């Protein structure tokens, strides 16, 4: 919420430009659900938005503890929204632990909505409060709405005859109702959704609707403290089109299904569940009628190996995982590289090393993706920048894999995977076709015959008469495809594998500048999920008159042909990354440009302010 003195609309609602709300409560409080419903309602209301769900690693940690706090942040505005927001304007804290964990992020003057019913001595103690924050001045300087939601919910759903436990579960809907009122949102979609969801338990549906309505009515009727009114956020000027909200993992799954259709090939998806990649498997498991076969393997190695087997047999082989699983797949990636089979590997990165922080985000698998295998083992690496881009990049990955007969890694991360954004839905008819040529002709065939332009070997599908052949992980003769231990041949094959992957750059678009000029004092070079924060920080800096541009790399390996030339036109290069400096080293190694790192490894996305500060610091350096 921007300024203290606010304009109002005809109905007396304060007009706001942009708002950040964070829902926070116990894992069992249904905050993700409330957040997601609020997101839908906000999208329908025509705002642009970005979201950031932040779960605990425990399935359902003991109630009331700080490590069990689950959060969902949404940023929505009448202009375009690039990040879920640095600081919440509104914090919903369903219990003391939620307050404890989140209050520090709320700027003074922010609105804190509290469920006082949960501020029991037991809960206060579990949250680590020695005194009651409602009483000890902790909340001084904030605007607060202290409501015994628990009590009000029980009263509201009483007529529906639910037990206390079930009744209390509706707290999130009560709060949602209140927020719908505060931010002028329509309840209808949520009401309909509840009816669908609880089709088999109409009593639950009605109880939840009652809670939703009760929250809304509370807003309408209760005397709200001064400084709190009903807000209106005008529609954003999104470009024309048909929109929906999409998360990165959904978009990846749909992109794969679309790629199968574009290539007119079945998709085989072998995967082993792992946070935050699992939902790609879940989504694809429901798309069997799109020619998608999903296979939950016994581990990550079997998953990638099954996908390699499927690729050998002539379909689109795909596997998906997160960091620890990627580490396990390295040897098998080498096999796909040596046998030059098309393969798509999705890595939804999480905070590491080792098991690390499974539900937190990071970009620390770039090195592993580009260089983390035995031997010289080049492959292609892509990185979509937003949830929506995941769709196009899944297709692009399949295209490259099939066109060049190579494994392709797509790097997403926990932030993109779970974060939602309005997405302009493409038309299938507008998507680029993918052409696949299976070898049919036995004359002169050997499996390592190459397309002279792409250097792709020809793909001969088992079942084709006359093309019987054997491939494997041993070095192959350039000319015959048989096993070869010849020295010159190994040199030639190593060079060929490298040249083939480098050659992919010929089919890539040139690197463009995402914001600003193609030369200047500073290029801020990002990749992946940091897009929004960098974009916003660069825009801000440019508004301040600084000569700064945003260059966002999406083709991580090989990199766009013109990237070196482009970067050379900047005095300085700053590379913000959610790791200890990986792209920055690749840029320095490849181009010998004096790129400087701006690193963050807290498991959280960049705040815009952090990048803004980095820009100022970079420009200030002598």
């Amino acid at each position, binding site marked *: 919420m921007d300024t203290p003195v606010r304009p109002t609309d005809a109905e007396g609602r304060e007009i706001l430009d942009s708002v950040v709300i964070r829902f926070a409560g116990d894992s069992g409080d249904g905050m993700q659900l409330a957040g997601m419903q609020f997101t*839908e309602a906000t999208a*329908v209301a*025509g705002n642009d938005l970005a979201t950031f769900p932040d779960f605990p690693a425990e399935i359902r940690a003991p109630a009331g503890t700080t490590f069990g706090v689950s959060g969902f942040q949404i940023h929505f505005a009448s202009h375009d929204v690039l990040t879920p927001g640095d600081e919440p304007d509104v914090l919903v804290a369903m219990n003391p632990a939620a307050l404890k964990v989140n209050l520090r992020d709320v700027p003074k003057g922010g609105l804190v909505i509290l469920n006082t019913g949960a501020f029991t001595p037991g809960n206060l103690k579990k949250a680590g409060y020695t005194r009651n924050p409602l009483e000890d001045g902790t909340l001084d300087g904030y605007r607060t709405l202290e409501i015994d939601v628990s009590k009000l919910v029980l009263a509201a759903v009483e007529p529906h005859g639910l037990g206390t436990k079930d009744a209390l579960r509706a707290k999130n809907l009560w709060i949602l109702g209140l927020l719908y009122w505060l931010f002028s949102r329509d309840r209808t*979609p949520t009401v309909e959704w509840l009816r669908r969801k609880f089709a088999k338990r109409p009593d639950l549906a009605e109880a939840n609707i009652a809670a939703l309505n009760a929250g809304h009515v509370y807003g309408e009727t209760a005397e709200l403290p001064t400084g709190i009114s009903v807000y209106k956020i005008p529609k954003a000027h*999104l*470009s*024309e*089109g*048909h*929109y*929906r*909200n999409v998360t990165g993992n959904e978009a990846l799954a*749909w992109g794969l*299904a*679309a790629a199968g*259709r574009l290539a007119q090939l*079945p998709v*085989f998806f072998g995967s082993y569940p792992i946070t935050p990649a699992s939902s790609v498997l879940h989504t694809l498991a429901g798309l*069997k*009628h*799109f*020619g998608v*076969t999903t*296979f939950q*393997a*016994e581990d990550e*190695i*079997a*998953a990638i*190996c*099954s996908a*390699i*087997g*499927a*690729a*050998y*047999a*002539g*379909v689109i*082989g795909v596997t998906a995982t997160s960091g620890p699983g990627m580490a396990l797949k390295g*040897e*098998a990636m*080498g*096999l796909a590289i040596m*046998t030059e089979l098309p393969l798509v590997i999705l890595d939804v990165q999480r905070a590491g090393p080792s098991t690390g922080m499974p539900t937190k985000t990071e970009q620390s698998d770039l090195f592993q993706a580009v260089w983390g295998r035995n031997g010289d083992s080049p492959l292609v690496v892509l990185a979509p920048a937003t949830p929506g881009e995941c769709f196009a990049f899944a297709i692009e990955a399949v295209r490259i894999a099939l066109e060049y007969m190579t494994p392709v890694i797509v790097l997403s991360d926990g932030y993109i995977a779970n974060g939602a954004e309005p997405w302009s*839905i*493409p*038309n*299938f008819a507008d998507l680029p076709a993918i052409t696949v040529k299976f070898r049919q002709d036995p004359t002169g065939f050997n499996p390592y015959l190459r397309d002279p332009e792409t250097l792709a070997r020809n793909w001969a*599908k*088992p*079942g084709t*008469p*006359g093309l*019987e052949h*054997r*491939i*494997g*992980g041993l070095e192959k003769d350039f000319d015959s495809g048989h*096993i070869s231990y010849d020295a010159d041949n190994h040199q030639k094959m190593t060079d060929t594998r490298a040249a083939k992957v480098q050659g992919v750059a010929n089919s890539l678009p040139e690197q463009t500048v995402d914001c600003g000029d193609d030369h200047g004092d500073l290029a801020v070079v990002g990749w992946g999920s940091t897009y929004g924060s960098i974009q916003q920080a660069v825009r801000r800096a440019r508004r301040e008159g600084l000569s700064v541009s945003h260059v966002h790399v999406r083709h991580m390996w090989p990199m766009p042909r013109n990237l070196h030339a482009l970067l050379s036109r900047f005095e300085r290069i700053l590379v913000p990354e959610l790791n200890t400096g990986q792209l920055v080293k690749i840029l320095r190694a490849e181009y010998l440009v004096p790129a400087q790192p701006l690193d963050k490894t807290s498991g959280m996305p960049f705040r815009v302010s952090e990048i803004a500060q980095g820009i100022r610091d970079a420009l200030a350096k002598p």
Partner: protein
Amino acid sequence: MDTPQKLTRKDFVSDQEVRWCPGCGDYAILAAMQRTLPELGATRENTVFVSGIGCSSRFPYYMNTYGFHTIHGRAPAVATGVKLANPALDVWVVTGDGDGLSIGGNHLLHVLRRNVDLQILMFNNRIYGLTKGQYSPTSLVGAKTPSTPMGSIDMPLNPCAFALGANARFVARGIDTSTSTLGELFTAAYRHRGTSFVEILQNCPVFNDGEWEAVTMRDVASEHQLWVEHGKPLLFGKDRNRGLRLAAGGRHVEVVTIGENGVTEADVAVHDQTNRTLGFMLAQLALPGFPMAFGVLFCDPMPSYDATVGAQNADALTRLGTGDIDKLLRGGHTWTVE
């Protein structure tokens, strides 16, 4: 289906020089396979051999069919992908006691329980051949090898018992040099729809010569080999007068001789290949004291994994119609900006 001209052994011989040591048991297995496939009516183009790493895993290079020499231990996983991608293919997996039971034990376990329609041949020479003779998970306690100069101390695995514990639905055992029975086992494995597991005792003359001699030497064969057949009594011996009796309460098994101590053929247990517990008992029989069991120890078919995957996919298609990307993307809440 068109009826192509009848293929012969030679059609399955690839142009690659065979690179095993002279005298290696793998040669006999290769010959048996090249002889059997034409008999089965298999075609070159629809046959795929998938292997891991090891001497045994070089097998695919020598077959004039499709072949994939993958990485150590992972052949069952790769083969699963091949079969699910194209269930019309005949997919064979060739593995060794190291490849299949050491690094690859987990994939073998899971392919067996899933019952993917593959034929898995494990060449068991009780040694790591390719890496020059370290002991393997099937080596007997006391094996002196480069990595165990004082003798190995790991209790060995019994591949067939393992497979039965993994809920395999077809488990058989053969011998490299018994090529005619090998052909029969390949045939039975091929006919069984689901994962067929065949352990083949194989001699490695270089690093573990004579490991199986006590069972396979011609002069002891009839006494030390019990070839089982479904519905037939469990008889062995030169005169086929020795048999297995399941003793009181059925928990102990003993060797009896027909005609001695009043034993008649009726006392001898009859092989029931659908009885997993019996198969497990047979798999464990070992010298001294018992003959070693060969043939199809267990076979109890169920729908194969690939068939069920296909059925589910087809079912989804029937219920939901061919997927439409535009509809998919427009499912759920959408809105239009003009």
